[in-house]
């Protein structure tokens, strides 16, 4: 112990390490407590951050989109050329698309059902093909949502009867995010312009959510007057706000859970350190007798507590990063997609872990340092 490199660097650290190795099981259990606390804080925090990231990733396009439809005071049923032009005028830098909807009975290989029909001016922006593909200059054929394709039992290449027309299926679409403005799960997507000139909705897509919210305000104030709501303009701002409030609540709750487990862990460190001072009363008395100052004893005991904390926290951080990778793989489909925020939680966990065990070491260390050498030695 005394001749090791560690001892040359700090003999007290080596001595502390040696003391911890005396009650190995107890030391490991105390460290495990800290590890669990750190894992709780770090991985629960990371979980919150990853959840948020995953939500923002999947809803990203929806949040950047503003929808415009006929309002309650509208003198039109659908948005014709004139209305679309009006929207375009106030849409700033946003890209403008039109969306038309309808309903029809659809017959596939297995059965007939009623499905919604959707046609967007630029399908590639809103839907992606899971199998088959959307032709660049799409004129004929239809694309079918995954669920509907399942119900009908059709694949690309098959034909379906939409209304009274026979159409070839060119693609089955990938599942769309639930937040998306264009829901295609059980819909038939027709080539642009097939549902007539009138659009049931105009979609304006901006580059950032903030831009979208600004466009939304711009549209609302210019298209509608105080008394007449000619257009209904809707964006994801309030939904995003609600989500942010909820996620911060969830995160606070998760951190509180982590904090409680760390509190329990520091109580266990306190217990371990107190037991060890009581057990080593005579030995500490001997150290005092042979010339250790109170500060030396304090330092020795604090090193022991800090070592428990540092080693326990390192394990905690390693485990948390492992768990984080699992979460990332599951929610963000990339194990290494750690956000800066998620990594901050591991640092936070580490600091809390070492800090907590240092603080719980204070009282036992103080108690050990202040035991009078005589009393410590009295049998």
């Amino acid at each position, binding site marked *: 112990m005394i001749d090791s490199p560690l001892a040359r660097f700090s003999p007290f650290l080596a001595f502390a390490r040696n003391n911890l190795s005396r009650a190995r099981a107890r030391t490991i259990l105390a460290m495990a407590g800290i590890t669990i606390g750190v894992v709780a804080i770090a991985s629960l925090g990371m979980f919150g951050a990853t959840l948020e990231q995953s939500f923002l990733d999947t809803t990203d396009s929806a949040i950047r989109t503003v929808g415009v439809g006929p309002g309650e005071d509208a003198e039109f049923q659908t948005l014709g050329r004139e209305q679309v032009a009006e929207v375009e005028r106030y849409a700033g830098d946003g890209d403008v698309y039109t969306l038309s909807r309808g309903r029809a009975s659809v017959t596939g290989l297995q059965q007939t059902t009623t499905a919604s029909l959707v046609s967007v001016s630029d399908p590639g922006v809103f839907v992606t093909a899971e199998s088959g593909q959307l032709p660049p200059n799409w004129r004929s054929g239809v694309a079918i949502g995954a669920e509907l394709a399942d119900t009908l039992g059709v694949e690309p290449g098959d034909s379906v009867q939409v209304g009274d027309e026979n159409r070839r299926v060119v693609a089955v679409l990938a599942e769309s995010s639930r937040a998306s403005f264009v829901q295609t799960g059980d819909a038939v997507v027709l080539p642009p312009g097939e549902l007539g000139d009138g659009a049931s909705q105009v979609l304006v897509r901006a580059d950032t959510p903030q831009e979208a919210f600004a466009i939304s305000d711009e549209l609302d104030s210019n298209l509608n007057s105080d008394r007449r709501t000619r257009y209904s303009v809707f964006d994801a701002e309030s939904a995003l706000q609600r989500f942010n409030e909820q996620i911060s609540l969830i995160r606070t709750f998760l951190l509180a859970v982590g904090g409680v487990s760390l509190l329990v862990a520091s109580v266990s460190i306190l217990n371990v350190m107190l037991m060890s001072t009581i057990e080593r009363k005579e030995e500490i008395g001997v150290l005092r*007798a042979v010339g*250790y100052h109170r500060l030396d004893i304090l330092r020795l005991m604090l090193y022991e507590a800090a070592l428990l904390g540092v080693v326990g926290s390192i394990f905690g951080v390693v485990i948390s990063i492992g768990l984080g990778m699992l979460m990332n793989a599951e929610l963000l489909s990339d194990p290494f997609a750690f956000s800066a925020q998620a990594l901050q939680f591991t640092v936070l966990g580490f600091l809390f872990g070492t800090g907590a065990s240092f603080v719980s070491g204070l009282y036992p260390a103080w108690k050990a340092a202040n035991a009078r050498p005589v009393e410590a030695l009295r049998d």
Partner: protein
Amino acid sequence: MSVISATDAVKIYESGDKTLRALDGVSVSVEPGEFASVVGPSGSGKSTLLNLLGLLDEPSEGAVTVDGTDLSTLSKRQRTDLRRETVGFIFQSFYLVPTLTARENVAVPGLVSDDRSDLIERADELLTRVGLGDRLDHYPNELSGGQKQRVAIARSLINDPDILLADEPTGNLDQGTGAQVLDVFDEITKEDVAILTVTHDEQVTDFADRTIRLVDGVISDDR
């Protein structure tokens, strides 16, 4: 000049409404190289005297003087430093650290000093001196009682003390190993280190240069 001395030392312990005069005016001085033993029935104040002379405790009245310095003039910190430089301790139950080797146990008191360069060499040398040159890397549980006590003696010598204070050093040892420990003591006193031991062991009192008999906190006999 004496190494350490107590003059009219009184030590009063108070617990609740009872006061106990553990020492009631004791004057002792220990000369360099002297081997003195303190005997007396239990409760006569032997351990209290040892604690006072070991600078572990302060007298309620009277004075303890080390090398001409009155202890009451020193701060706690200075007292600890003086204790480290002047006094070595040996205990009945050895109090070795179980996870440290003989060599490391001997070196422990030196960990707090700034100059640790020859600490290991000094520990080895001291262990060789007490006849344990071949047990340097043994752990306490691999040593016999007598060997453990000799490790403890080597430890008490690491800071070059002027006096060793021993509390029943042969109390846990049989006759034979006790005699070995006494031989080591004899070697030490030849180098002008004084030894003061509290004991019930006649083997020790027979061996001592001087025996101080304490009864009810006063010296009844000193020769």
